[in-house]
């Protein structure tokens, strides 16, 4: 670990001041401190924001949910409104990490979570995300767990968060506060695919702070759920995952929100699958036909070719679980 200075922000103004001067925000620390130990992250200044009033979950005027950035994963997962309105979110959270980590990690930190790419986490390996221009060791290296969607020649690392997949599916909005005031960014625009600048991972301006994630209201009845496919049954990142939410009315799918995890450089929204579902009657054949589009555009690598098929099966399974029928 490299030496760093640590300050604790008493209020939002103090945090933003420190952030504007280059301080890195520290909440649960489950990613940042871990990476500091590996010297992947070498911040000069940490600004502890855990004292800020961002730990509330509130129902919005339109009936959506606003989850404060400092709400822990375990708090969010256990919250009655989250569980009843958005099972896809609580399930994604409960399938994340371990109980100990969920007690520390925060919603804001979770969507800021950095990749598990082992080359990124090993400072002796080439990584464009960690050291722009050094190359991507994963592209032709050991890449079983890497992305098949949204990749570039510069980076093939997955975004590791489960909750972010649910947020992407539900078209959440990220609330930000910066030196120039507050703004909101659609989730789809918040996390950036690597392109030629894999070091840029979020659409954050300097010193900006996530204050909340807002999930829009959804028409009732809305059924949703999250499926995580992984090598072991707990405490493990997804090989593939699927967040599915469906509004079925009059026997017809009126709204469909589907995203996949473990396969994309960012949580991967599946508009092709969603379009295929809209206006149709739930059936096994429909799930199968829609899921067949889940891996459209996939660019598999040497060791993760299986994810193409696994992704389709994962989405099909979860469409069936959420949408019923066989």
């Amino acid at each position, binding site marked *: 670990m490299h030496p760093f200075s640590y300050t604790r922000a008493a209020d939002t103004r103090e945090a933003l001041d420190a952030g504007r001067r280059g301080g890195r925000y520290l909440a649960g620390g489950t990613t940042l401190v871990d990476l500091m130990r590996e010297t992947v992250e070498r911040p000069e200044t940490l600004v502890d924001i855990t004292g800020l009033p961002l730990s509330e979950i509130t129902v919005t005027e339109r009936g959506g949910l606003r989850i404060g950035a400092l709400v822990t994963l375990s708090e969010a997962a256990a919250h009655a409104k989250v569980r009843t309105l958005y099972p896809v979110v609580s399930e994604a959270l409960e399938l994340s990490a371990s109980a100990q980590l969920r007690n520390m990690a925060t919603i804001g930190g979770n969507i800021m979570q950095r990749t598990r790419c082992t080359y990124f986490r*090993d400072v002796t390996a080439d990584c464009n995300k960690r050291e722009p221009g050094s190359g991507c060791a994963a592209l032709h290296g050991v890449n079983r767990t890497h992305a098949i969607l949204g990749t570039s020649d510069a980076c093939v690392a997955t975004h590791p968060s489960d909750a972010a997949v649910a947020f992407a599916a539900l078209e959440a909005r990220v609330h930000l506060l910066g030196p120039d005031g507050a703004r909101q960014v659609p989730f789809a625009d918040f996390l950036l695919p690597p392109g030629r600048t894999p070091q840029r991972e979020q659409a954050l301006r300097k010193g900006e702070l996530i204050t909340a994630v807002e999930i829009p209201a959804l028409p009732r009845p809305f059924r949703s759920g999250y499926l995580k496919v992984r090598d072991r049954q707990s405490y493990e990142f997804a090989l593939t995952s699927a967040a599915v939410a469906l509004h079925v009315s009059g026997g017809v799918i009126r709204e469909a929100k589907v995203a996949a995890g473990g396969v994309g450089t960012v949580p991967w929204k599946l508009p092709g699958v969603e379009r295929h579902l809209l206006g149709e009657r739930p059936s096994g054949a429909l799930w199968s036909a829609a899921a067949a589009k889940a891996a459209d555009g996939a660019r598999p690598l040497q060791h993760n070719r299986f994810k193409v098929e696994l992704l389709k099966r994962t989405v099909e399974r979860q469409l069936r679980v959420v949408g019923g029928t066989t």
Partner: protein
Amino acid sequence: MSPQPQAAVGAPLSRVDGRLKVTGQALYAAEHVVDGAVHAVIVDSGIGRGRITSIDTVAAEALPGVLKVLHHRNAPKLPYRDNSGSNNPPGRRLRVFQDDRVRFHGQPVAVVVATTLEAAQHGASLVKVGYDAEQPSTDLAEAEPDEPTTYARGDAEAALRSAAVRLDLTYRTARNHHNPMEPHATIARWNGDKLTVWDKTQWVVGTQTELAAVFGLDTAAVRVISPFVGGGFGTALRCWPHVVVAALAARETKRPVKLVLSRKQMYLGTGFRPSYEYHLRLGSDRRGRLTAAVHELDAETSSYETFTESVLAAGQMLYSMPNVTQRYRTVPLDLPTPLYMRGPGFQTASFVIESAMDELAHRLGVDPIELRRRNEPSDDESSGLPFSTRRLRECYAVGAREFGWHRRDPEPRATREGDWLIGRGMAAGVYDTARMPAQARARLDADGTALVDAAATDMGPGTYTSQTQVAADALGLTVRTVTFRLGDSLYPPTPPHGGSMTMASVGSATLDACNKVRRQAIRLAVEDRESPLYGVAAADVVVRGGRLHMKDDPTRGETYRRLLARNDRTHLEADGSFAPPSGPERHSFYGYNATFAEVAVDATLGLVRVRRVLGVYDAGRIISPKLADSQALGGMVGGIGTALLEHTVTDHRDGRIVNANLADYLVPVNADIPDLKAIYLDGEDREADPLGVKGLGELVMIGVAPAIANAVFHATGRRIRELPITAEALL
């Protein structure tokens, strides 16, 4: 056994050191308080093979608190005397900081010593090492093997050609790392030419002799202390280079030095179970009687040492067949040297042989247990020796009944629950009953308590407890009045704490020492005119609860305390020893098991979930049933890991291990290990050792992986011959 009543042995005791452990008072290697200790952090090589061309330590040395940076350019030349006695395999061991060669990715190339751990860690990250890198060779399938070790009886090739049924199968097993909870750690302190180390080790004597050899010291000048070991699985059977680094750093800085490996460094040179490519050809007649087997296997080793393990024995003796050929080749690679890992050799061989037996059973339409029964040998066909005990048939019978084997529909892919395909599989397991010379010392004090010392280790199986049980019964004391001490090279020497030989070897030495002390006391009493036992034949006296009395008349007797006080004895003391009979063995000694597994496999997603595992063990006498269960369940968990999860992955481009941490190297978590059960056949092995034990710790892991693989086949109809079994193999 002794004529003493057996009150403690066989009782399901909790660990005598349990309270120390759960209250944090048990001191592990890095936790010993050594005044003035400073911290050392190793710098690992960033290439997989080549030469060091430059080392820039300016930034590190400028850091406040950094005392010294040692590397091959400023380290003194060390004697490195030959030492074949410390689990060093044949070859030339890695000599730290003695030359500019890099032999594997992550090799120690420098060490930073500082007054704080943080300064040492930061300093290590600031050392800049320049290399002349060469292409490393790390792929077992690509590299040139060594000359083979071979075995043959009969003419296997000819027998195969004429066999009615032939199988020709290739298996691959992944490299596995031991991954104990406690990392390797050493504290080294010099006092003149005398060296004391507190170390994580499964063999204080081995570490002592190795350090003496490396530094050119008398063995007696080195003391190794290791009272608690937080898991080992074999990784601490050898004195690795980091122990030398700690001692060297302490000598060069003239300060006690503490060195703790990071989790990542636990993958960089503290041993591993090598990866194998194993080609097996099997021939049988139409009834499934085996006629021939040809085993051809290649295994990883390092470029500088030739590591081999007992991977051939099972193929020579587990089943009856006239013709066997084996060819075992090590393949030198630019990797650190492997080392024994739980169930060494047998674990790999059993996966291959037992998977193949399942294939043969399926091919012939014979029940897998019945096929094994048909091939049960009457003696050890590799040596012609009779088995000391071999109760595999009973293991099958008890296991089948307990597991409900007969309810299994033999047809693969026949049982389904929703999305899950259900499968049941079984395997036989075997592990040799090793024993080696060991010593112990027992002392009975005037207050009626006893102290027993041996340089043994307790890496988790419960040596403290089980040795206390043996000592208590032999001395006629309660467990609470006996203290067993271990983990110090000043105590009487013992063999490595590995190969499941501690109970047989150290336990027998403990038994001997305690029997001697008890007999001394009895002799003292029967020759003492003032003793109520005066004149009684020594053989008619037993001791119970610290009181000597006539076997047939418990009222006639007295306590140890009274006896010793009256005779002005502060204590009675005896050295005990055990050694297996000299000369060739007269029996074939093995422990056996039948292991059963039930799995569920997601029919479309390929996920394998173990539902239950049952092991039935012919392991001789069980000294400590509660600890035996801990051993057995742990072994099953290890087996599940090997079968489904564990896999050290190397990037062959530069020899880097890409998953050198516990987030990416997967071991089972609680959710992966639902229903595990162990059953021990009642009995003992009178030929093996005075205690009648056969060893348990290795045996319990063997058979789990093939039972799971066979269950996966039964569930899915898919035969997976590569470990670990992953989702993509089953899609």
